[in-house]
């Protein structure tokens, strides 16, 4: 169970990215965070694994206060939270295998890892994870030779190396075309259903939300404007989240 309590983030320039956000995510949920660009979705996700320091509020995960942890303890927590990104955030000039293995850095011997040494079983684990996302044959290609959909799958494989209990996905399909979007989200769905990994995913498109989400949080200007089931998002609710001028766009 992940509890977000009165989370507020104000950036150095005075921008209020999150304003008193509170909600709960039970284990095993596929939570979608819906909102316009700039609504605070990315900030919210990054506060959960502390890539961004929240200004106020608490985040409690299975009884541990993430916001109060630091140093080794924070790294231990991060180990169990996978994250995938809109721009994939792979290390471009490095091989796919090393990119995937880098997801394991929180587990392996830190000194040996500096020499790019990974034990045999970790390499096997990486290959298994690549196989799981269907690109085992690309293990020795450079990351920058891959297409967008392939890159995101490397991103998922990297996150899987962490054996995560929680997966954060920041607009994972916004840089991909609709067909690929479905294939990526299906992997996330699979992880959610088969491995019981809690997924928190930010998305743009309502159709995708209806198809994959088990629960939805709507954000607008850093505030929670909707909490509920995907089916409860009526046109009225939709306009509350996206503004009066919004029109729904259908994704194939």
């Amino acid at each position, binding site marked *: 169970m992940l509890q977000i309590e009165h989370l507020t983030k104000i950036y150095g320039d005075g921008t209020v990215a999150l304003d008193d956000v509170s909600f709960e995510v039970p284990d095993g949920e596929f939570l979608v965070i819906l909102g316009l660009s700039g609504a605070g979705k990315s900030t919210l996700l990054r506060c959960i694994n502390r890539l961004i320091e929240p200004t106020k509020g608490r985040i409690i995960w299975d009884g541990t206060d993430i916001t109060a942890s630091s140093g080794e303890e924070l790294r231990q927590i991060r180990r169990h939270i996978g994250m995938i990104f809109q721009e994939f955030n792979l*290390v*471009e000039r490095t091989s796919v295998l090393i990119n995937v293995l880098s997801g394991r850095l*929180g587990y392996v011997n830190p000194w040996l890892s500096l020499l790019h040494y990974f034990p045999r079983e970790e390499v096997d684990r990486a290959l298994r994870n690549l196989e799981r996302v269907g690109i085992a044959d690309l293990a020795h290609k450079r990351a920058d030779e891959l297409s967008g959909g392939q890159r995101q799958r490397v991103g998922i494989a990297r996150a899987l190396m962490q054996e995560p209990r929680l997966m954060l996905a920041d607009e994972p399909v916004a840089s991909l075309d609709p067909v690929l979007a479905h294939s990526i989200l299906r992997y996330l769905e699979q992880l959610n259903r088969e491995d019981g990994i809690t997924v928190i995913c930010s998305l743009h498109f309502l159709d995708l939300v209806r198809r994959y989400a088990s629960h939805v949080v709507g954000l607008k200007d850093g505030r929670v404007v909707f909490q509920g089931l995907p089916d409860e998002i009526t046109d009225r609710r939709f306009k509350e989240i996206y503004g009066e001028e919004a029109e729904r766009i259908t994704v194939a």
Partner: protein
Amino acid sequence: MQRKKSPVLSSVLSLIVPGLGQVYAGSPSRGAAFFIAIAVTAILVRWRGNSLLYTGIAVAWLWNVWDACNLAQGRRLSSILPFLAIALVLYVIGWGVTEINLRRLLTDVADVKPLVSDLFQPAVFERDIEELVGEVQFESPCSDSPPAKGSPLESEPYLVLVDKTCGDPGDTFTIEGGNFWPNSRGYIWWSNLAGEMEFRVRYKGDYLTFETDEEGRIPPTTVIVQEPFAEAKDKGPQLYRVQARMRRETGPLHLSETFFLVVEKMVETVFLALMATTIAIIIAIPISFLAARNLMGGNPISMAVYYVVRTILNTLRSIEPLIMAIIFVVWVGLGPFAGVLALAVHSIAALGKLYSEAVESIDPGPIEAITATGANRLQTIVYAVIPQIVPPYLAFTIYRWDINVRMSTIIGFVGGGGIGYLLQQWIRLLMYEEAGAAVWAIAIVVAIMDYASAKAREKIT
């Protein structure tokens, strides 16, 4: 919209002091531009003393009044006209200051022809030289027992005196000889008896020459008795050696001594660049992190370090390596070490800046992603930062080595070692064929470096 100003007052102000009306009308930067442009140009015109040029300034000044008048009414005019007037004046002054003289370019072209043609005949190949020498002794001034006239030899080249065997400086005497190469030209040399002081004899400014006949005989040739050498002055009668010398090239062409010297110095030059670049890399890498805004932006102390390092780098970079070399030549003496230091210091500044920009332009995404996996700081640097900065670092380093090879070829001009030192000496001694060899060596090496560095950088990025 701002309140309208008085056009009359504005015009009058600009008439008195250019730009003042514009300041009054609310465009201080425009006013400052007018004032500085007109004032600086006026000072320059006064310095060059060409009063015709005041016309240009007058045009700009009047236009400035008109501009101030319009500005006060809220109209902005295009400033093409005064700009052209000022530019014209400046170019006329510039023409004079730089002493541009197109006529000389055409009339004096003959002066440069031997130089250029020598540069295209670099002294890379040469033949062995063989020499024939015949000599006879002459006394000056005359003593009681003057030397003999000498006698013809059987097969060796010889020289004999025809009319007299002694005389005072300035007198003339006649020589003749034989057994030289037929139909060839040679020179007359004068030396003391020990043979360590010698020179070629001149006659009316030109070297005194002779031509042999078809049997290798030197016809009777008139020679002037030379002044005594400094240490023989006032020491009474001395014997001198008068020689006829002939040289010719013989044997096959082979690589010249100059060639080997140039190669040796070229190797020195490339190593000079290599050492300078290597020293610069070692120092510039840690410095580049201190000069990267994205790494140093955390707190005021690191920001202060950032600014100090940046300022030092910018200052060092603005000093030309040649000037740096002069300083180091005084410091550590003539030679390649001074050149290494000069190039190293300049390269530290240049690479420090380029490296730090590479650090600044890294994509934060991978850092974020690696941090999110629970990696520690060192792991994050090794996995997310270094892979991103290695290619640009390599590219900049190769580029810098390329530049350093180029620079090291001329750093010798101020005593910094390498091939430039030879080139500069040969140019001063008017040894243009040797200089040509050096110039070609530089051109070839620089072209190879240029090509190789471009190829290598292509591969990396």
